[in-house]
Each structure stands twice: as C-alpha cells, then as structure tokens.
C-alpha cells in the first residue's frame, strides 16, 4: 500500500469517526439547550397564569392555538407538585409537545392546569443545524481528501525522483547521481543520506578496485621471479625424472597463478575505464580471425565449428573486442568434450556463441559471477565470463545465457542499451 493511500485511509476513518461523535454530541447538547429554553417558557406561562389568577381571581381564558394547548381540569386534591415532561399528542399528525402541569385554586375550586407547547420548532432548528453541520463537515472531509491527494502527490515528488535516480544508479559507473534540490527537510535529509551512502560505497568500491590492481601488480614480480628461476632450474643436466615431474607441477601451478593474476588485472583495468578508446571494429572479420586462430585447437580436441557471420561494424575498444571473442570461444572449447560442436552466429543485432549438445541448462544467474566454476575443471579461474560481462557493460552491450536445443548459448546484444 502506498504511503499516500494509507495516510488517506487513516485520515478518512478518523475524520468520519470524529464527525460522527461530534454530530451525536452536538445533537444532544443542542437538544438539551433548546429543551431548557422551552422549559423556561413553560415556567413563564405558569407564572402568568398564577398572576392572572391572583389579579382576576379566575383562570385566564383559553385561546386555542396550534402550537399551544391549555387545559383546566377540576380535581379533588391540591398539590404543590409541578411536573414538566415531553409527550406526544395526536392531532392531524402526531406531534411532540412539552407539557407543564400544576395545581391552581380559583373561584373556590381546585384545578389541575396543564400547558403544552409544541416542540416542532425546536426539532426543526435542531434538524437544520445538524444538517448544515453534517454537510459542511462532509465537504470538509471530501475537500481534505482531494487536497491531500493532489498536494501530497506533489509534495512527495522529490522522494519519487530520488528513488528513480537510485534505481538508475550502478556502483562504479562513474556517473555520480545528482539529486534535485528540495526545500523539504525530510527529503533533503534523505538525499543527503543517499549521497553519503553512495560516496561511501564508491570509496570502498574504489579502494577494493585499487587493492585488486595493486595486489595483482605486486604479485606479478614474484611470479616472474619464480618462473624465471624455474626456467633456469630445468637447464640443470642432473635433474632426475622425478624432479622434472615436480618442476612440471610447479610450472603448471605458476601458469595458473599468472593467468589468474592477469585476469584480475584485466578486470580492474576495464573497471577503471582504461580501455575507453573506441574505434570501428569489423566484428565478422575479427570472428573469422579468431576461428582461424582456434582452428588447430578445435581439430586437436575433435570439435566441429559452424559459423554464420553477417558483416557487422560496432564501435568499441579493439582490444576488448578481441578479448570478448577470445573468452567466449575459449569458454566453449573448455566446456566441450570430443565430438561436440560450437556455433558462432553474428547478426547486426547479436553475437551468439554456443556449444553442445548438453542435457540440462546451466544456472544463468551465477555463470557470469566472478570465480564461478562451471563443471569440475580445476584448470580455469572462473573469470572468463565475468570479464565478458564487464566488457559488455562498459561497451553498452548486454550478455545473456540461454539454453536452446541442447546448446548453451551466450548471446551478446550488440544494440547499445
């Protein structure tokens, strides 16, 4: 539920509740006050009748009125009791009256005097006052609701804008997000916090990148020394066969280390935009070159390759284009067994490199992750596809994995996104 919706709902419910309670209270208090007023009138009437009796010695004449009913009844006993109560009197319609009853002596007789006054006016006043109140409160609520919707939406704009910016934001993409200035403290605070969080994570990200690059650099020298020492060591004529085997193991390990290091350095460099210089790359020509380059290996591993290349030009860094094709094809070769086939399809929209046949798809969410190793080969460092992804990212391409017809397909969308 949106905040605005939630707020409106709470607002509406409380408004209606307050409105109901207030109406009830208002009704009762108004009713009470008006009744008191009528009672005062009744008492005044009683007083007038009494003074009339005192002055003239008899009860005043009854003047028939619509909204006043005066009655005299002879009774046996006198009482000081004065009662006031509401009652319904049936006339043409049933009407509510307020009635005062008391005893009066006149002309030697005892009368029970009752004087009733219609409450119709009082009711009318109460009703109209309540109606006016109800309508105005209702208008207030509706107006409030509409204003809330319109104004709040506008007030929340900076928030939605900041969210949109954050959605676009990717760490390490150099484009530092800029938030619109807002005079609302909360949103200014939010933007400030986001900015602080971004610059902190950018810092950490840069530190990590720097660390990776420095570590790889520093590692290169010892690796170079070890390799050179081994190149010297195998010159020894007296090396036995078992010693030679040990040396070979060390050679293979140092090769892996060197490759890993190289891949890490490459990743760091791509991330650091050291390959930002673009030129027009004839992708079909490059693919042909690569197929020729890998041909020997493909044959030795008994792999067949089929290609369908349309002439395609892209604007990208030439070195990265080379690495992109290299890694994708290498990856297919690495994960193929004797007799498998590899296909390369290039259209103006996409470069698709796939290999197969395989029984089941790979996990598309992890294969582009760093140090993810498909299969159980210990020969790879798991950075090949991560590099592919990084190259696509800086070039503005997208790379995806698809399993189709028993083939693992790696699809590079060449339309800049």
């Amino acid at each position, binding site marked *: 539920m949106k905040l605005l919706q939630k707020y409106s709902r709470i607002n509406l419910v409380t408004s209606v509740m307050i409105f109901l309670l207030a109406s009830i209270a208002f009704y009762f208090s108004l009713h009470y006050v008006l009744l008191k007023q009528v009672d005062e009138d009744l008492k005044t009437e009683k007083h007038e009748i009494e003074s009339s009796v005192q002055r003239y010695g008899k009860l005043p004449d009854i003047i028939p009125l619509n909204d006043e009913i005066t009655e005299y009844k002879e009774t046996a006993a006198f009482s000081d009791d004065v009662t006031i109560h509401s009652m319904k009197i049936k006339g043409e319609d049933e009407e509510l009256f307020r009635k005062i009853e008391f005893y009066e002596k006149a002309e030697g007789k005892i009368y029970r005097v009752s004087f009733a006054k219609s409450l119709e006016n009082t009711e009318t006043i109460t009703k109209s006052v309540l109606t006016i109140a109800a309508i105005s409160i209702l208008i207030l609520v509706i107006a409030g609701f509409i204003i809330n919707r319109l104004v709040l939406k506008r007030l929340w704009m900076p928030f939605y804008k900041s969210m949109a910016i954050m959605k676009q934001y990717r760490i390490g993409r150099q484009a530092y997000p800029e938030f619109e200035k807002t005079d609302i403290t909360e949103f200014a605070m939010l933007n400030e916090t986001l900015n602080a969080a971004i610059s902190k994570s950018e810092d950490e990200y840069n530190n990590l990148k720097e660390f990776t690059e420095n570590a790889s650099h520093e590692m290169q020298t010892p690796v170079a020394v070890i390799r050179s020492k081994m190149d*010297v060591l*195998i010159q020894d004529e007296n090396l036995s066969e078992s010693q030679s*085997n040990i040396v070979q193991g060390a050679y*293979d390990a140092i090769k892996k280390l*060197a490759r890993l290091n190289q891949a890490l350095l490459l990743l760091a460099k791509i991330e650091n935009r050291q390959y930002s210089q673009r030129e027009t790359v004839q992708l079909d020509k490059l693919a042909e070159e690569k197929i020729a380059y890998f041909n020997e290996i493909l044959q030795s591993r008994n792999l067949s390759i089929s290609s369908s290349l349309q002439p395609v030009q892209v604007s990208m860094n030439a070195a990265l284009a080379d690495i992109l094709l290299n890694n994708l094809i290498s990856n297919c070769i690495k994960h193929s067994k004797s007799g498998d086939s590899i296909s390369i399809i290039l259209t103006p929209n996409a470069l698709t490199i796939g290999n197969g046949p395989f029984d089941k798809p790979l996990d598309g969410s992890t294969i582009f992750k760093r140090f993810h190793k498909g299969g159980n080969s210990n*020969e790879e460092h798991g950075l090949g596809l991560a590099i592919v992804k990084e190259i696509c990212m800086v070039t503005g391409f997208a790379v995806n994995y698809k399993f189709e017809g028993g083939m693992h397909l790696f699809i590079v969308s060449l339309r800049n996104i």
Partner: protein
Amino acid sequence: MKILIIEDEKELSSSIVSFLQTEQYVCETAHDYHSALEKTELYDYACIILDITLPGGSGMDLLQNLKANNKADGVLIISAKNSLDDRIRGLKEGADDYLPKPFHLPELAARVAAIIRRRSFDGSNTITFGDLVIDLMEKTVKNANRDLELTKKEYELFLYFVSNKNKVISKGAIAEHLWGDDMDLADNYDLIYTHIKNLRRKIIHAGAPDHIRSVYGTGYKFSTDI
C-alpha cells in the same frame, strides 16, 4: 655481444643473466636508474633489457636519453605494467619490443636474438645452423637447398629453438610462444607434441641430424652437439 639488463628485482635479473650468459652473450646488470644511465652513456650494447619502474627514475626517461644521444642499442622493455599505454609509448619512444611480466626466459632470449638480428647490418637475412639455413624473409628452412616445407607454426618453433640453442625450453614456454598469452585454455601439450614430432620428422626427412630431444616431462632441448 654485450647485453645490459636494467632490472631492480635482483633475483629476476640474476635469472636472466644465468640464462642468457653463453659463449654468445656477455651480460651486465644495473639495478637502479643512475647506474643504468651511467652504463648506457659509457658503453654500447647490442641489446638493453629495460624495466620501466626503477628506483630513482623511470625506464622511459632512460629510453628517451638513449635516443637523444643517438645510441644504436636495441631496447627490449620488460614491464609488470602490462598496460597498452606503456606498450605504445615504449615502442613510440624507440624501443624495439615489449615483453610483459611474467615471461618465460626462452621467450626473452628469442626476443633479444630477434632484436640483435634486426639491428646487425651484415645484410644477410639468413641464419645458418649446421647445414640448415633459415631464411628470415621468406620464413623457410632449407637443408642443402632442399626446402623442409615447414608450416607457419613449425617454422616459428624451429626459430624459437635456434634462438635457444642448448637450452631446455619448458612446454609452457613453447605453448605461450606459439599461441600467445591470450588463449585462455588449459594446456595444449598434446598439440605441442604433435608439432615437435612433425618438425623432427621433416628435419630428418631433409637429411639433417635430429637436434631436438625431449627432456623427461618438462620440455625440449635443441642441442648443437649430438
């Protein structure tokens, strides 16, 4: 022929010296900018192996200094900074070649030999080895005018061996020489074996002695004396 190795990492420097030091080359070393500057100004070298990052200064400055003084020394840059900029800048400043670390010593030796060959002005584009004659322009190997008909890879392999005479070359070094550093694949040792087998077959077929021999599991050696 004198070779100067300018490299601050002493262990690497000593490896290079012990690998290159043969009857053919005399190696000298410098470990920092100033001693290197002194040596390059005083003597002439057939080839200078130059590291870019040096204590006391940059290898690039040394290179500029050499060129400013019209020195004819060949220069091979070895750098841990395998960045494109370094490579392009180095070659633009007049270096003959660029080899990123970590490298195999036979690769270094082959590059040094190529630089020296290119810089020597004896006019011939051939290397003679016993009865075998390598034509560097036509990229052919002949034995008594009989073409061995080597493939491109076999020719490269042969030249690599000749540049590393009497040295054991590891399989990894051969793989990197033949297919470069880019091929992100597990070892192609089987393929190397096939190429070497074919090369040997062609050499023997042409009537020349078989100089190549396998050294246990580690690599191959091209011996001058059989």
